């Protein structure tokens, strides 16, 4: 971009020969040619769909494809006055609150443990912790479905063996009970995201210069004080990054929900994204309504990110 500005300012200087000017234009063109794959990709898959979906959101689109009825903002009004939709908003927020702080907290604890107390076992532990990341969310979902099964699942079986419950019938019905389903999905999602978080947190922890610790030891700081006054503040840029990434990831979570509960029981795990998917692609597709939901979600994510930057960023210490 700056190069383009630069070249126009140069062309305005007195009397460049026509050949030189053509060469300049050509070289600018060449620059855009290099950028073209990205620009075309973005246009095709991001910008054009953004406009198309806004147009779609103002219509009701027939599930059989070839008919559209312009309804203005009726889709938006219907959504915002629909208690099911607000319930999805509530569930999404609960899901984000359930996955993000837990995920980051566990990641930091594990990163610190892996850096210091159990550092000698690091490659084994790191592998074990990172494996979930490379498993697809669908596979993870199926694994958890087996674990959570109320009749033949291992999780309840172990809890009964351990004496927490008298029989399988008393143990939680993870996926079919409204009280447990969201928690079950949160557990599965946190587990799968944990590996990524730990890797990032680990890099952050190991980036902290040893001299800070040496200096604090000289000053007589204990382990907890070092954690509180050195590790955490210096880790804050990493934590901020994790927060942003995890919030976005949680808002977009799909695979685990789809495989584990399909948004059920009832609508107890229907998050905003899952609701968009369901309305747009399943059974009787309603793309107009789904597009309107996508727009509302986009506004929410922008607001969330703004809050993150405006509020949280002030508490971040850069080294």
């Amino acid at each position: 971009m700056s190069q383009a500005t630069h070249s126009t300012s140069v062309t305005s200087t007195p009397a460049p020969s026509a050949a030189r000017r053509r060469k300049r234009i050509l070289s600018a063109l060449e620059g855009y040619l290099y950028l073209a794959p990205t620009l075309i990709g973005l246009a095709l898959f991001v910008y054009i769909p953004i406009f198309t979906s806004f147009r779609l959101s103002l219509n009701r689109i027939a599930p059989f494809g070839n008919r559209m009825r312009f309804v203005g903002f009726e889709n938006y009004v219907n959504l915002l006055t629909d208690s099911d939709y607000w319930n999805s908003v509530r569930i999404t927020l609960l899901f984000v609150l359930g996955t993000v702080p837990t995920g980051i907290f566990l990641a930091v604890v594990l990163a610190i443990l892996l850096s210091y107390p159990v550092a000698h076992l690091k490659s084994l532990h790191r592998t074990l912790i990172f494996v979930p990341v490379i498993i697809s969310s669908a596979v993870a979902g199926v694994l958890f479905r087996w674990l959570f099964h109320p009749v033949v699942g291992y999780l309840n079986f172990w809890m009964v063996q351990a004496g927490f419950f008298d029989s399988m019938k008393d143990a939680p019905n993870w996926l079919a009970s409204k009280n447990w389903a969201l928690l079950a999905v949160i557990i599965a999602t946190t587990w799968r995201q944990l590996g990524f978080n730990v890797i990032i947190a680990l890099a952050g922890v190991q980036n902290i210069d040893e001299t800070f610790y040496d200096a604090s030891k000289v000053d007589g700081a204990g382990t907890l004080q070092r954690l509180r006054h050195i590790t955490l503040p210096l880790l804050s840029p990493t934590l901020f990054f994790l927060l942003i990434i995890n919030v976005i990831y949680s808002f977009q979570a799909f695979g685990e929900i789809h495989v584990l509960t399909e948004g059920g029981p009832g609508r107890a795990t229907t998050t905003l994204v899952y609701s968009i998917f369901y309305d747009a692609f399943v059974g009787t597709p309603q793309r107009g309504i789904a597009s309107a939901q996508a727009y509302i979600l986009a506004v929410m994510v922008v607001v969330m990110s703004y809050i993150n930057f405006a509020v949280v960023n002030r508490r971040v210490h850069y080294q």
Partner: protein
Amino acid sequence: MKRFATTLTLLLIFMLVFAACAAPVAAPEGDAAATEAPAEEAADAGAADAAADGDVITLEFWHAMSGNLNDLVDELVARFNDSQDGIVVNATYQGSYDDTYNALLAAFDAGGAPNIVQNFDLASQTMIDTGRLVPAWQLMEADGYDASVFVDAVRDYYSDENGMVGMAFNSSTPLVYYNADMLAAAGVEMPEGSMSFSEFKALCDQILAADDAPPYCVTFGQVGWYFEEILANSGGLYFNENNGRTGRPTEVVFNQEQGVEVFSFLTGLISEGYAPNLGNTWTDTDSTFLTQQAAIIFDSTSDVSIIQNSEFQVDTTYIPHSDSSDRNGVVIGGAALWLIDSGDEAVNNAAWQFMKFLAEPAQQITWHTGSGYFPVRKDVQESEEIQTFWAENPNFQTAVDQLFTTPTTLDDGTPNYAVLGGRAGPFPAIRRLIVEAYSRVLNDGLSPQEALDEAAEKANDELANYNAFFE
């Protein structure tokens, strides 16, 4: 010079990338070949004539059969391709029915629609409303094909007032599978035919009272299908306008007497502890039954894996009906093949040849014995191969009997609309409301009547929204 070479290389790369991108959207070769085929050859046995001229018609066939069913489809397609020279069928697996349908919608917009597409029972009205079909009855009429070869229930399910619209391909119904060893050990005998709800619960009480009884009597997923089927078996309707068979339905009627009795039975099985609450699932029930945690399972006739994977004797019987009714029969489930109008009669006719081929007895026998889906025509019953197969696999016989004994007309001569099955544009969306209604009863403590009323209200909105496209 060097710069020129780089630019050229980049341009080449773009061209390659764009060629690759464009491929799926471009019209399939079949269309090109088709437009070249002379139109006058189209009328009757166009395919054979075209072959004589050396023109080959390529057909795109999109289906949703995965795993071993996919292999079986490929086998049938290969058999068709080998049987003649004029038509080549290209079968592609497109994912689930939903995936296939979404791909079809996209293809309608962008070009490259297939010639034949498989879509499931509930989508019938939506498929018709696309306005892109060639109805099967038109081709049958032109060909002098007699639709009465098909099993009545199957034929009528996919018919409108003119005749069959889609060609039934993979058809299934629900069935009651039970662990015969377990029942024998409990000293319980399964009665013949369809049980009433109270007979069913009495049987469950006997099973659960035995020593070494399993923790549960029965297991089933909270999918909309069993409600629809048991409602039909009890003679209840789902939609007004005679189940949507004599006009576009404007209201659901599943929250009336029969519907409430059926839904009370199904939710009662779970809340009274006869069945585990497994949520909306097709698979978690299998593991419950196969590990002998439940003696009975409701499942599809096409789920042959239940029998193959069990370490005990599995027998089958008909699905139950309400106390206040007599057994009325089952609605055919599964999916059909829909012929998409290519705009070229020769191509449409070629697609019809393929569909006709799949409905022939030989192919039907391969399909039935390999997949567990029904043979869709009556005369295969007389085949010796099928008779031997049924003798060795009596569970298939039960499934076939349950369907073949389903009357499509009542004693007074009127159509048996309950077993013809509901037809409505937004039926898939309405099915989901029933799934939610289970949770409203089991999690939120609503009565079955309240949950169905709530679902009905939402369902009526869905119907109104859909019908608004036709005002």
